[in-house]
Each structure stands twice: as C-alpha cells, then as structure tokens.
C-alpha cells in the first residue's frame, strides 16, 4: 500500500480538487444522460418492451390499490357508519335480558329528564315486492337532526370531509307521517327509480339521499312509520346515546336515578366500531393477501418485461461500455429508466385501481352487511396510496432487477454474453430455486402443526405460496427431459430440446401462471367444499317445515295457537338472550376474559337431533339435561381455544347458585360469525331465564299418515298461517327459503374473493400472453433457421404451439397438487382459525378444468397471434437476428 503522509491541502489544491470533482460529476451525469437517451431510443423502436413492463406494473398496482381502497374504506366506515346518519353512539340502551324490544317509555323518560343526546331506534326486517327483504331502520328524526347539528360543531375540527346534512331532507313531510322512506341514492336508483317502493303491501314514497349518510342497503324512516311497518307500536329496538367518554359514569348514575335499571334496559358502552374492526380483521386480511398475490403476479410480468428488454439490449449495453460509458453511469441510467417506468406504471395502475375499487365496493358492502351487519360509506381516495404504491413497486422492482443490472454491467467487454454459459447459469439458478423451495416447504411443514394463530398460519401459507412457483423451472426441466427419450429424431427431437431452452425465458411467466392457477384452484376448492358442507349442515340443522319469529309480545299467543293446530305435527322452540361468558384464569389466560355470547336453549328434540356435533363428551346427553353442561359453537371454541371438559362461567346462570358450567360438546355453526352457547331447558329454567321463546319452528302433517308435507302444500299453508296468525312475510319462513337464502348469502360472501381470484388469473394470463409475444418475437431467428432447412411454415406453427402446450400442460398438471395443498391449508388452517368453521375438503374437478381451460386458451391466443404476425413477414431477415 502506498501510505503517503497526510498533509494539509492548500486553498489552490482544494479548489483544484473541487473543480475535478465537479468535472467528474458533470461527466458522469452527461454519460448517464447519454445512456438514458440511447435507452429511450431503444424503446422507441421496441415499444412492446416498454409496454410489457408498464402493463405488469400497472396491473400489479391496479389490484393493490383496488383492494386497498376497498379495505380502507370499509374500515373507515366501521367507525363512521355504525349508527344512523353518520352518528356514532357512545352508549346503547338495549332491551333487558330476555326481551327483544324496549318500552318506548324509557326514551320518553330520558327526554323528559333533559337527556337530549339520545336517539330512539327501531329496526327489523321487512318484506317488499317479490318477497325481497329489507332492513328497515326507524329513528326519531327531530332528535337525529338536533344531534347531528350539535355533533357536527364538535367534530368540524377532526373531520375534514363534509358530511351530508339532514337539513336537505323534506322533514315536514316526514314528520307529518307521510308514507315516505329514505334510501341511499345508489340503492334508490336501482330499486325505486320512479320514487316508489312497496313494503308490507303499502306503497311508500322514496327520498334518495347522498350515499355518504352510510345507509348502505338499509331503508330509513321516521320512527312512527317504522313502528307501524314493523308492527312494533310502543316498542324500540334500542336507544343510542351520545356522551363524552369521561362523562359516562355520570350518565350511568343519571340513568340509575331515573330508574332505568338493567330490568328496564341494558347499558352497553360502544367501541366506535372497534369490535367490528376486530371481527372483520380476518376478512380484510384475506382480501389483502389476495391483493398481494395479484401484486406479486403483476410484478412477475414487469420483471419478465425488464429481463426481456435487457436481454434484447445486451449487445447495446456492451457497445456502450466499449464506447467508454462508465459502468456506474450505465447502472444509474438503468435505474432512472426503471424509476420512470415504475412511476408511469404506478400512476396508470392507481387510476385503474380506483376504478376497480369502485366496482368492487358494492360487492364488499354486500358481503360485510350480510356477514357482520356493517354498512359501508361511499369510496374515498388518497394521494398517499399512489406514493405508497410507487414506493412498494419501486422497492420490489429494484430488489428483483438489481442482480440483473449488476450482471449486465459486469459482463466482459471482449465478447457478448455466451449463450451456452447463460443456459448453464439458468440451470444452476433453477436448481438453487428448487432447493430453496424444498427448504421453504419443509419449514412450513414443520411449523404448520404448531400454528394455532390465524396470522401465523397466513404467514406460513405465504411461505408455501412463494415456494410453489420456485419449484416450477426445475420441474419443467425434468418433465421435458423425461419426454426426450420418447421423441423421434428430427423435428420432434428439436422441439423438445428447444422447449428445454425455453424454460428459462418463460419461467417467470409460468411461475406467475402457476401461482395464480394454484390460488384459483385452492379458492375454488375452499368455496366448493364450504358450499357442500353448508348444504349438509343445513340439512341437519333445519328439520321443521316452517320457522316463525314473531314480535316478542305476540309469541305466547302464536305458540298457543300452533300447539292446538291439528295440522301441526311438531312444535319446536328456541330461547335466546345475550350473555357474558368468562374464561377461567389459567396459564394461557392470565387475566379473566369476558366474552359476549348469544345464549340459546332449544327443546330436547331439536337439541338432540339438530345440533351438528363436532365432538362431545361420551355421556353428553345424560349430563346435558341433568347438570350444568353446555354446548359451545365451533367458532367460539376455536377463537378462545376451548376444549371439551373445560369449565367456564356464564353470568346468566347466577340464579342457579353456580355460574360455572362444563363444556360437554362443540357443535358446527357454519356461516355464523357470532359466539354461541346452548344450554338445556332444565338449566335455562333453573337460571330463571325468560320462559317465552324468541322463535318457533313447526312441522306439519302430510296428506297421508306419517308422511311429510309437500312443497306446494307448504307454500299454501305458509300463506294461510301468515294470515291466521297476523304475521308478515319477514316473520315466517319455510325451510326451503332459509336454505336458499343461506346459500345465496354464502355465495355473496365469497363473491369478492372469487372475483379477486379471477382477476389474479387474468393478470397471470396477460403475463403469459406478453411473455409468449416477446418470446415468439425473439425466436424469429431459430425459426428461420428451421425454415431454411426445409421445415414448412405450418410445421413451424405446429411446433411452436406444441412447445408452449407442453410447458403450459406441465404447469397446469403441477397446479393440481399445489392447488390442492393450498386448498387444504386454506380449509384446515386459515378458514378454521379465522372463522372457526370446519369444512370437509371436496376436490372440484370442474373448477380445476375451468382454470386449466383459461390457461390453455390464453396460451393458444398468446402463441397464435404473434406467430401469425411473424410468419407473415419474410423469415429470411430473421436469420441475421440475435437469438435468445
């Protein structure tokens, strides 16, 4: 080493150094700019290359932003739209234990006592024309107006968005008792374009209000009209109260002073949508996972495009280096190019992502409303999403492309890259990828049995999802090599030998296709299996012919009427209250945890024959009817890791002298996200819980002794009973109708996932198309060589098609076990842990066939189109072209 003594530089020397540095900087900048200009000129001649990169980035960002906007909007809605007219209640006064409704007098007491920050609400299902059901929300509009005014003053500083005002409504008409209901504009445009809606056989005027009110698909009316329509005169569903958090204890004492005790109304503090956020976390996590999958698939396309464009510029880059452009300047130019492409692609993706979100939101709104009762507000968007998307895409793109850039700038100047060496390097990379995939799969296989949490399982699923595409190139290589001995010498032999070489340039597109296909197959397996499981479960659960849920004040009369009805062959009851379940303190649960649950009880026949038990203690039924033994729903058991024989505490059992109970059985509760507990009738009565059931179910005699009633007779009987018992169509359901509605709801629940899944497959198909297009163009020279040797154009076309077919078929074949593996994990880990539903896995050949068909059709189009363009041109020109 040359160790010069360090001496202090003179000002002149310093200036010289500074000048030299400036000059160097200027040279470097000039060289970078020159290189960039050459690259721009390259893309001007090969716009398809820039197009492929932009397409990949734009598609990736579209799906990312589409789902992000949908998710963010939903989460925003939970805190902003949990109450009517964008009001957020801090406290709810709900019906006391064992009652479905509150007495209206409680509300009047509150108002009289000066507690004006309260809002009376009635809600319920109501039938419309053609048997369609609507959620009707009725509230005291005057109170709502006053409240909104006072609360909007308070919130102007915190809410930047302008919320719509009640003043815009024709209040005079509404308060005069005019038969008018309010709907969100988007819904009104769909169901009441002429401003009229038929509900419970009454024709009502419709006022359409801005979607920002957060009504979703609910209908709003003044409380008096709603009570009339819902047959709830003098009753309320709940009272929403508004108070600062610190004033809540004071409010509680005020209520006590007014005599509003738990016997009159239950006091429950609201969480500003936090419970809903927690409840829907799995749902949104699923959507996020799907969008990340699509994002990755999109980035595969972009990366493939970058790689192809670099491959085509290999000679150019060497020439630039030979001309004296510094490697550093070349690298910077390549980086600038990538940044530019990412910014343009992300901006395009941002715009289309917002449009996608606009299409997805009604679907998500429907799902969330059906599953969790959440209403969504119309979409918003933020510039930060664009910056986030650019940053994420840039990080991913730089991470993926940096090794490529470094390889290129490091290549020897004396020669162009040796293709043979490149092929060897590709094979080595594929072997490493395969080994890495095996390693990842082994890690996942070892860790999965220990994963009890949904989040960890999702991470492990992510590892499997990463490993699957990494397996592909090596497996493709082995697959094609296995076919080699079967090939006849000549064109067939060439076909397979070249296919093996095509694996490297095609591998990224095929990896994206495999990932999308596996995800598609797994999701279809999950949905198909769930549907089948749900159908079987409904068969077990629904044994009666008609299910009746009348208003609480009339249930006694209706029960008596049905008991004495000679047509009824069996009458079954269900009791229900809301209760609190406490978990004992243990090592897993260091502090006592209290969980809100629905506590149910059913008649003995229903309990014994319709509880689809997952597992139970050996002597369940003996102890169930004679001891404090309970049944818990599977979602509850899984969420809180409850086991058979565990002892839990139920506040509702206090009256028995012992609130402890043993878990004697865990039952399947598919499609239900609430926590449920069932206790026996003797225990229910011992706990002095309400004697009146909340719903009834009845079976009817058929025409012949012992036979079941026919469908047609049942429809007739349902109509007759509705008239005789004074029930609306929303209060009496047939078994068939419940099943149909449950399946329809189920389908809606999964519609968003299936749509996203299909979009991912489409993105992958576009990726395959762009890869095939670029590859076929790049292969003009090898094809021309064959042509010069006497292989006809038709034989060439058939050969190229066969090559792509082999690669796609092997990929599709691999998608079967990988899709099944992902499906298995989705069913037995993710869905089970996220929702608590055990599903029997059923392999859906039809869905698999459909996915394969899409892949094959895309492949056919992707090959035929460029091949057609190419074979129209004289092939001789291609003989001098560079090859892959």
């Amino acid at each position, binding site marked *: 080493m040359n160790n010069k003594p360090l001496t202090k530089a003179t000002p002149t020397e310093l200036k010289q150094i500074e000048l030299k540095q400036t000059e160097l900087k200027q040279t470097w900048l000039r060289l970078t700019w020159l290189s960039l200009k050459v690259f721009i000129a390259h893309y001007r001649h090969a716009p398809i290359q820039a197009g492929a990169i932009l397409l990949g980035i734009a598609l990736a960002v579209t799906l990312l932003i589409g789902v992000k906007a949908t998710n963010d909007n939903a989460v925003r809605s939970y805190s902003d739209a949990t109450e009517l007219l964008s009001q957020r209640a801090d406290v709810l006064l709900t019906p006391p234990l064992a009652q479905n409704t509150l007495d209206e007098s409680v509300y009047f007491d509150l108002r009289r006592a000066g507690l004006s920050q309260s809002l009376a609400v009635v809600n319920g299902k109501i039938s419309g024309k053609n048997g369609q059901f609507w959620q009707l929300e009725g509230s005291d509009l005057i109170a709502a107006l006053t409240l909104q005014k006072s609360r909007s003053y308070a919130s102007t500083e915190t809410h930047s968005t302008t919320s719509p005002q009640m003043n815009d409504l024709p209040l005079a008409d509404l308060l005069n008792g005019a038969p008018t209901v309010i709907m969100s504009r988007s819904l009104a445009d769909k169901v009441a374009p002429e401003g009229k809606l038929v509900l419970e056989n009454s024709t009502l005027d419709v006022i359409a209000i801005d979607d920002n009110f957060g009504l979703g698909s609910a209908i709003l009316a003044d409380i008096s009209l709603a009570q009339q329509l819902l047959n709830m005169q003098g009753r309320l569903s709940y009272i929403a109260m508004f108070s600062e958090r610190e004033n809540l204890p004071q409010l509680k004492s005020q209520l006590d002073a007014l005599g509003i005790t738990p016997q009159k109304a239950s006091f429950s503090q609201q969480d500003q949508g936090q419970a809903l956020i927690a409840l829907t976390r799995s749902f949104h996590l699923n959507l996020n996972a799907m969008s990340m999958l699509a994002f990755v698939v999109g980035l595969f396309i972009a990366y493939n495009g970058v790689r192809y464009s670099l491959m085509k510029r290999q000679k150019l880059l060497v020439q630039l280096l030979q001309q004296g452009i510094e490697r550093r300047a070349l690298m910077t130019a390549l980086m600038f190019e990538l940044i530019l492409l990412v910014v343009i692609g992300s901006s395009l993706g941002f715009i289309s992502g917002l449009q996608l979100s606009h299409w997805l939101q009604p679907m998500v709104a429907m799902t969330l409303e059906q599953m969790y009762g959440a209403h969504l507000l119309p979409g918003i968007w933020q510039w930060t999403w664009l910056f986030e998307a650019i940053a994420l895409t840039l990080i991913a793109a730089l991470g993926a492309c940096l090794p490529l850039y470094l390889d290129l700038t490091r290549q020897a100047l004396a020669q162009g890259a*040796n*293709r*043979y060496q490149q*092929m060897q390097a590709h094979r080595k990379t594929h072997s490493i990828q395969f080994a890495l995939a095996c390693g990842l799969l082994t890690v996942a296989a070892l860790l999965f049995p220990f994963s009890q949490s949904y989040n960890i399982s999702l991470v492990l699923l992510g590892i499997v999802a990463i490993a699957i595409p990494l397996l592909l190139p090596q497996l493709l290589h082995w697959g094609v090599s296995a076919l080699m001995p079967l090939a*006849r*010498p*000549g*064109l067939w*032999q*060439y076909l397979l*030998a*070249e296919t*093996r*070489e095509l694996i490297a340039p095609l591998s990224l597109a095929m990896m994206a296709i495999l990932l999308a296909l596996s995800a598609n197959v797994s999701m279809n397996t999950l949905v198909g299996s769930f549907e089948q499981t749900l159908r079987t479960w409904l068969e077990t659960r629904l044994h009666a012919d008609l299910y009746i849920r009348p208003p609480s004040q009339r249930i006694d009369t209706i029960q008596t009427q049905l008991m004495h009805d000679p047509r009824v062959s069996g009458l079954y009851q269900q009791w229900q209250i809301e209760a609190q379940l406490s978990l004992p303190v243990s090592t897993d649960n260091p502090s006592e945890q209290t969980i809100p649950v629905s506590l149910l009880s059913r008649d003995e026949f229903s309990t014994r024959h319709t509880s689809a038990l997952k597992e139970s203690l050996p002597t369940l039924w003996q102890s169930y009817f004679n001891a404090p033994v309970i049944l818990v729903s599977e979602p509850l058991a899984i969420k809180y890791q409850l086991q058979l024989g565990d002892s839990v505490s139920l506040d509702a059992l206090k009256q028995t002298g012992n609130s402890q109970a043993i878990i004697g059985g865990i039952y399947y509760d598919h499609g239900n996200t609430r926590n449920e507990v069932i206790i026996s009738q003797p225990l229910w009565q011992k706990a002095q819980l309400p004697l009146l059931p909340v719903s009834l179910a009845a079976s009817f005699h058929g025409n012949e002794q012992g036979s079941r009633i026919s469908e047609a007779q049942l429809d007739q009987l349902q109509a007759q009973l509705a008239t005789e018992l004074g029930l609306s169509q929303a209060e009496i359901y047939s078994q068939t109708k419940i099943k149909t509605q449950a399946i329809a709801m189920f389908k809606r629940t999964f519609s968003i996932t299936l749509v996203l899944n299909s979009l991912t497959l489409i993105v992958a198909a576009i990726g395959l198309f762009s890869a095939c297009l670029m590859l076929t163009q790049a292969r003009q*020279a*090898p094809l*021309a*060589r*064959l*042509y*010069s*040797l*006497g*292989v*006809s*154009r*038709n*034989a060439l076309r058939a050969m190229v098609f066969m090559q792509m077919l082999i690669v796609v078929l092997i990929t599709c074949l691999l998608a079967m076990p990988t899709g099944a593996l992902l499906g298995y994990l989705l069913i037995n880990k993710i869905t089970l842990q996220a929702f608590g539903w055990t599903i029997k896995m059923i392999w859906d050949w039809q869905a698999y066939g459909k996915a394969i068909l899409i892949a094959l059709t895309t492949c056919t189009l992707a090959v035929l189109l460029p091949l057609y363009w190419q074979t129209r041109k*004289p*092939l*001789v020109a291609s*003989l*001098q072209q560079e*090859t892959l």
Partner: protein
Amino acid sequence: MADVAKPNPVAKLNQVSKGFRDGEQYHQVLQAVNLQIHRGETVALTGPSGSGKSTLLNLIAGFETPDSGEILLEQASTSTWQDKEWSRFRRDSLGVVFQQFNLLTPLNVKDNIAFSLSLTAQPWSPWCDYLVEKLGLLPLLHRPVEALSGGQQQRVAIARALAHKPTLLLADEPTGNLDDVSGKQVMALLCELARESQTSILMVTHSEECAAFMQKRWHLSQGAVAIYEQ
C-alpha cells in the same frame, strides 16, 4: 454452346428482377438476370456490397420472391410454388451454409448433422460418417454446438448442409468468420465433398482466394451479372 452438351440445369433464372422499397425510394437490386447452374458445377458469386449477391441466393432458396421473371429449380418453375413445395425442395435438394453458421443451438453436433436427414426420414448413413471424419468432427459429435469455436461450427454447418446429398448447395460467405488458414481448409473440404456428392455449389464471397476454388465466377454489378469461366 456449352449448355447443349450439359445436363439439365439444377437452377435456372429467366429475366429475374428484384427491388426493395426504402421509404419513398426504390432500389433495383437485380435487373432481368439470366443464369443457370448445372449438376456438379461450382460457382462463386462476387460483387461489391449491396450488389444483390445475398438477394440472389435468397431468391433461389425461396426465402424471397422475385418481382418479375421466373426461377426454375430442377426443371420445375417455382412461380406457382407455395410453402409446401418450397419446403420440400429445401428438405430434399437444397443445402445452405450461412456466414453466421445458423446451427440449431438446442441440439448437439450429431443431432444438427442428422437433422436434415431426419426431415426426409433418412437414417444416418456411411456418407455421414465419412463427412464427420473428413471434417474432423468425430471427437465433437456429442458436444453442444455453442461450445465449439467458429471454425468448428462452420464445419458442422457444412456437414449438415451436405448430409442429405443435396443437388444444390448455397453458401453465403461461408468463410467470412474464419481466419485465412481455416478458410482455405474449409473451402477445400467443401469443394471435395461437393464433388463426391455431385452437388452444385453457388457461393457468395468477397474473397478472391475462395472464389478461386470454384469452377465459375459470376460477378454482380448494378443489378446485372457478368459470367467468367475459370
């Protein structure tokens, strides 16, 4: 005069013209060219760059179509030939050696040579063994073509072009990528093997030394051909 005694020509061009449009401009490359090459004849095609040498070769191989005139191959007019007929001619009767070798990279040396045979369902023959031995390819038979040097690749290209004993061999600067010594060796071998298989050769070259290996020389200039017997 000499044509009367000679057998029917392998390739014959009657009044063949060919031009290219480059934007607004039209370049006439070949102007009413009349030529014929007989069985076993070897011809060097020379001329300045852009004189249409490669175009002439491409027209005979069917890679391009003439604007006017007629090309007869093995006494058959190609005017009505479609892809099927052209492909059959290339498979059965034509061998091509390119300056860039244009070997089939996915195949090894032996499979490259056997490829032309396989297209016409012919087995590997003693002639192929002879070619391999003569061209010094025996130790290289199972090597990937890309692992070979330029000279070795050119010898593989010659073996492939002659393996099915074509009646006509078109060669476009076959020694353009080789040094002088290798170039001469390759030319000598090419001529010797063509003579043994009774193959006619039409070779584009800029090299006087290479041209000297051929029996005839055609010189292309400004779209017209001057013929010299050597």
